[in-house]
């Protein structure tokens, strides 16, 4: 990954490609690459849909290698949803292929002067950009079907659906999985709207004739990768729970803990929870000839995904993740997995973030647009998004806009991004991350539960009251670092519990780049990324006042534990003191 491609969509005479050495960005990958480029090159007050914003697409540091779990792709920009810096990542095949093509980043810049729609084809011979207005307002599944006719099945596709073209604030960028389905989405923050604003409908990545990226020390890399895979396979979460049930294994647990936000955060327990559980989902998938275990890209050994079929055994969608099952399920008072699967398909097809879309529907339900539990109504509302009706455009702009338009007081967003499926009142520590992350409410911003092993910030005394703030800080640092490696975050459990697996990860990085990598280096990387992101947000006008949860979390106690969010503003303001 020795080069960076810049594509200026606003160049006189049409899009212009410049390929340069990585230069000052050498050694960066994934989130580190996207955030540092955005923080360095984008004016913080730029309009997110304007010519000054950039969309940076970057594979992880180990993407395109023979290493396991290395297929996350990061996309960064100034977010049209939050107004902050944004990094949104996804699995699928794109990261591996882009890395093998040698690009550490592809940066989309400027804005076309016409309303033509473009597709970008990248292969070993270079980058070709062509107008293809025949794709206009097509959604992801039909777009991929059409492009496959032209480019075949041995490539990876990144596309936007109609939501991206309409520049809706929850629009996602779809990446195809190994079966070439557009099921893996850079979902959060409206990155698809930025791609739409650049006039780009599809990116086709073709690595024909290219090999895996070679490590500096192949033998050490092979050995480290073997130990890493062994560690993942032997851990009960990464070797058993996730493969068997996927992330939706969390539904029963969150519901039991009273932390499952139900009917727009009115209760922490959903009476229909067990019908939505990962256990029920896996059983149904197997019974209908789908799959309960499936990888979103080649080289994934955890395989937390699956294939969801209908009662007749026909493909509906990939296995919806926990957050999707929650946003369209319990959050909306819907306890039917078939309805959730249909909504997941619609989200993927139209190209919207499943979290913000589902939360917006629940907020609309709270406003009385349709009643809670109205399965057909929820499907109809998402279809409105696909049709681009005025109501659909409002909903497609997410929970914050929907709440404002319909006069709803209880709107679960931070920096206008919808909260995911974990109520911050019973589990207060996660609320610290929601409030203070650089990205708007995001559970994955503090997900890398390996801080104890990384000793980020030294040893935390969990019994101290400030422990929650310290833990959140350390989680955010560790996550920013792992997001930069291109590793799937689900590796975190195995590296938290098994020091030898963490060492194997360090050895993979070290042997690949021919350096010695320590835990301290990982921490330094995480801090560097977060500092750049915080600095961008500050220059964009964000202050401590934005690092807060919505007021209702402080005033409305939630059943069954009757707790409100109790972390003080002073404590929240100390998260980034390092």
């Amino acid at each position, binding site marked *: 990954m020795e080069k960076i491609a810049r594509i200026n969509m606003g160049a006189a005479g049409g899009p212009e490609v410049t390929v340069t050495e990585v230069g000052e960005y050498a050694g960066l990958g994934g989130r580190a690459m996207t955030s540092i480029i955005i923080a360095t090159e984008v004016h913080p007050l730029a309009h997110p849909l304007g010519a000054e914003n950039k969309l940076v697409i970057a594979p992880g540091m180990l993407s395109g290698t023979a290493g396991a779990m290395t297929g996350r792709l990061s996309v960064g920009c100034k977010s049209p949803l939050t107004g902050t810096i944004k990094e949104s990542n996804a699995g699928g095949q794109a990261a591996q292929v882009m890395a093998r093509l040698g690009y550490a980043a592809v940066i989309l810049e400027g804005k076309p002067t016409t309303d033509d729609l473009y597709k970008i084809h990248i292969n070993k011979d270079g980058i070709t950009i062509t107008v293809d207005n025949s794709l206009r307002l097509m959604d992801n599944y039909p777009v991929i079907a059409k492009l496959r006719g032209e480019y075949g099945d041995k490539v990876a596709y990144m596309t936007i659906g109609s939501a991206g073209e309409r520049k809706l604030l929850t629009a996602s960028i779809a990446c195809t999985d190994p079966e070439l389905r557009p099921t893996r989405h850079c979902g959060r923050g409206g990155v698809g709207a930025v791609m739409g604003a650049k006039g780009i409908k599809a990116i086709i990545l073709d690595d024909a004739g290219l090999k895996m990226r070679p490590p500096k020390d192949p033998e050490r890399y092979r050995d480290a990768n073997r130990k890493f895979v062994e560690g993942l396979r032997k851990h*009960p*979460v*990464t070797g*058993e*729970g*996730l493969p*068997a*049930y996927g*992330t939706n*294994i*969390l539904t*029963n*647990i*969150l519901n*039991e*803990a*009273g*932390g499952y936000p139900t009917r727009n955060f009115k209760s922490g*327990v959903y009476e229909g929870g*067990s019908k939505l*559980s*990962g*256990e*029920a989902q896996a*059983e149904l998938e197997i*019974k209908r000839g789908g799959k309960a275990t499936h990888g979103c890209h080649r080289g994934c050994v955890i395989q*937390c995904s699956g294939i969801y079929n209908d009662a007749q055994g026909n493909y509906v969608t990939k296995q919806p993740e926990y957050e999707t099952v929650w946003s369209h399920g319990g959050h909306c008072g819907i306890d039917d997995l078939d309805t959730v699967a249909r909504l997941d398909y619609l989200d993927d097809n139209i190209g919207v973030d499943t979290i913000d879309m589902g939360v917006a529907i629940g907020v609309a339900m709270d406003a009385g647009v349709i009643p809670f539990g109205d399965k057909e109504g929820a499907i109809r509302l998402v279809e409105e998004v696909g049709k681009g009706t005025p109501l659909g455009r409002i909903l497609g702009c997410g929970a914050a806009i929907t709440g404002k338009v319909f006069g709803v007081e209880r709107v679960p967003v931070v920096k206008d991004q919808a909260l995911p499926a*974990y109520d911050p009142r*019973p*589990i*207060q*520590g*996660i609320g610290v991350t929601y409030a203070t992350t650089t990205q708007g409410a995001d*559970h994955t911003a*503090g*997900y890398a*539960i390996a801080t*104890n092993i990384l000793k980020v910030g030294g040893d935390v005394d*969990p*019994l101290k009251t400030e*422990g*929650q703030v310290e*833990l959140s800080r350390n*989680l955010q640092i560790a996550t920013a670092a792992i997001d930069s490696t291109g590793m799937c975050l*689900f590796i975190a*459990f195995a590296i*938290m519990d098994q020091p030898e697996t963490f060492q194997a990860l360090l050895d993979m990085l070290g042997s690949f780049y021919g350096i010695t990598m320590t835990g301290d280096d990982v921490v330094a990387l995480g801090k560097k990324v977060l500092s750049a992101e915080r600095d961008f947000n500050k220059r964009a006008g964000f202050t401590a006042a934005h690092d807060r949860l919505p007021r209702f979390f402080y005033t409305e106690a939630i059943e*069954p*534990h009757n*707790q409100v969010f*109790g972390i003080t503003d002073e404590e929240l303001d100390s998260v980034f003191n390092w």
Partner: protein
Amino acid sequence: MTHATEPDSSPPLRLRFRVPAEGVVAFSPLLQAGFFVTARVGCSVKTLLSGQFGIDEEYVTRRITTMFLDSKPVDKMESTLVRDGATLALSCAMPGLVGATLRRGGFYAPFRAGISCKEDDSPTRAGIGTVRIKLFNLLMGELGPLFLGRGIIVTASAMEELLLSSGDLFMTSCSEVSVDAAPAELTALVKSGIFKGRKKVRLTVLFDPPVEIPEDDL
């Protein structure tokens, strides 16, 4: 020993049958939604699981890494007491930050300090009582046969719903079916409306071959 719960005046319908070992998955709706067992209450969670239910201590310690007593995450199962009428939910290790947070005695336990099970000194009445057990994820397959073999109490409506939604394959795989100790035929039983007007069913299921709690995972 006193009886801490007033026994239900109407005795449960006693349903018993034998299924092939792989048939345990059919009972997952009952296992995850929760079932009732009669037990000596007033003891610790650990004593209940190992001492009374006979689950290997090592398995309890290493495999049941997440547990809730009345919706509260349990950290110290040796000193957390189970009262009559309590609900005990059991799970393997869970993914993600929240999985780590809810884990028994985990590093991130402070994240949910406000809802954790606290040790409480108030007197707990010892005696025979009823405990509701919920089994999640991998534990359904591993511990389900143990509880089903001992006999569990479920609502008649939940039992009826389970049998109505079970496919023909399951129904025909059940053998040695008996209702209140009298031989019966399962398909006919469901159609006969036998559950109407009944509140509870005591369900006992034997597995063929018997399913043991796995030791490889320990």
